């Protein structure tokens, strides 16, 4: 479950050590954009020590490393043995480059270590164009993430709250991830003061098929979780669907309907997923937005 992945600057001890209290599904200790070039060495060691000592509770421990041309190999060598759950690889544009990074990661793992998973971050037009092959490039890839700020800059257009300019990129990433049976994680909503805007943007994200959203501020976590969690109404609908299916099987009915709508295999699958998620989250008291 990756409804929220929260970025935390990797060279700020106050932020790094408090990552577990925000209850994000994952925290991303950032060695890339959030760290100045002169402090990369310090951040790398701080994050490495944090991974082995700080309790991040239930949050997945993810580290965004630098591109290979900007210290990424050193990041891998230092960070991987400290057992992050996953690495977020920035600006991925080719399968060859991605497989090379994965090879370096495998070489840096200690004997018996839990394998480090991979999340490619697509944030260029070329990366988006290759979303399908990147998503299916390796069994360690567990999520495909979209970074829209760099993407729109490269596209030569302005980033807007409506997100018209990233509609295609979002759809391509969500589709590629679904085809590869991995999670799709949407770009962050960057105006942390705009709560209504965050809700609208996250509802759009969910409607496009994304399974979660990157976040740049702990204040965004609850809102994103609420949008991505099944509402009571959705849970009730899913229960009715599954009950109707059981009844239909028992009675030998050919066609089954709930609320006047025919129930077929994809609907049953969605209902099962809703119930699984609700049970996982224990969200019967969730507020509907």
């Amino acid at each position, binding site marked *: 479950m990756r409804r929220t992945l929260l970025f935390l600057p990797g060279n*700020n001890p106050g932020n790094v050590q408090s990552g577990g209290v925000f209850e994000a599904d994952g925290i991303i200790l950032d060695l890339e954009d959030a760290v100045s070039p002169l402090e990369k060495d*310090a951040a790398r060691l*701080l994050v*490495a*020590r944090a991974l082995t000592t700080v309790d991040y509770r239930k949050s997945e421990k993810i580290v965004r490393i630098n591109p290979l041309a900007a210290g990424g190999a050193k990041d891998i060598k230092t960070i991987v043995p400290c057992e992050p759950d996953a690495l977020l690889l920035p600006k991925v544009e080719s399968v060859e480059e991605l497989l090379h990074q994965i090879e370096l990661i495998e070489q840096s793992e200690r004997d018996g270590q839990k394998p480090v998973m991979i999340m490619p971050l697509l944030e260029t037009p070329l990366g988006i164009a290759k979303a399908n092959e990147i998503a299916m490039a390796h069994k360690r890839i567990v999520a495909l993430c979209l970074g829209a700020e760099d993407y729109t800059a490269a596209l030569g257009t302005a980033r807007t709250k409506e997100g018209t300019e990233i509609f295609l990129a979002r759809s391509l990433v969500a589709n590629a991830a679904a085809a590869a049976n991995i999670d799709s994680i949407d770009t962050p909503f960057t105006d942390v003061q705009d709560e209504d805007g965050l809700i609208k943007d996250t509802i759009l994200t969910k409607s496009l098929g994304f399974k979660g959203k990157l976040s740049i501020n702990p204040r965004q976590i609850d809102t994103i979780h609420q949008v991505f969690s099944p509402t009571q109404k959705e849970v009730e609908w899913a229960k009715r669907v599954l009950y109707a299916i059981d009844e239909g099987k028992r009675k030998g009915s050919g066609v089954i309907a709930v609320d006047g709508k025919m129930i077929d295999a994809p609907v049953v699958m969605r209902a099962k997923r809703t119930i699984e998620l609700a049970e996982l989250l224990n969200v019967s008291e969730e507020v509907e937005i």
Partner: protein
Amino acid sequence: MNAKVGQAGTLESNDIMITVSEAPVGTGIAIRLTSSVLPQYGPMIHATLETVCKNLGVNDAEIVAVDKGALEYTIEARLSTALLRAGIVTEEVMLS
């Protein structure tokens, strides 16, 4: 000959600024520590700094540390970075 010097960390809360200088062989680890929690945590910070030096094979160094409430992992990371920047230890030693 100028002594090797390296600095790491900041004066923000939860951090520690550490300056390390190479010292003549046989002089040992000399620590000058400033902290608002010196009475409570001074001995722990001293011990952490000495342990990092020992683990990295550093026997002689002058350490000036200005603590702003750093946890142990931050103290370890900042001293390691300062030692690397000073050239007193190498990356190979750090990763071994």
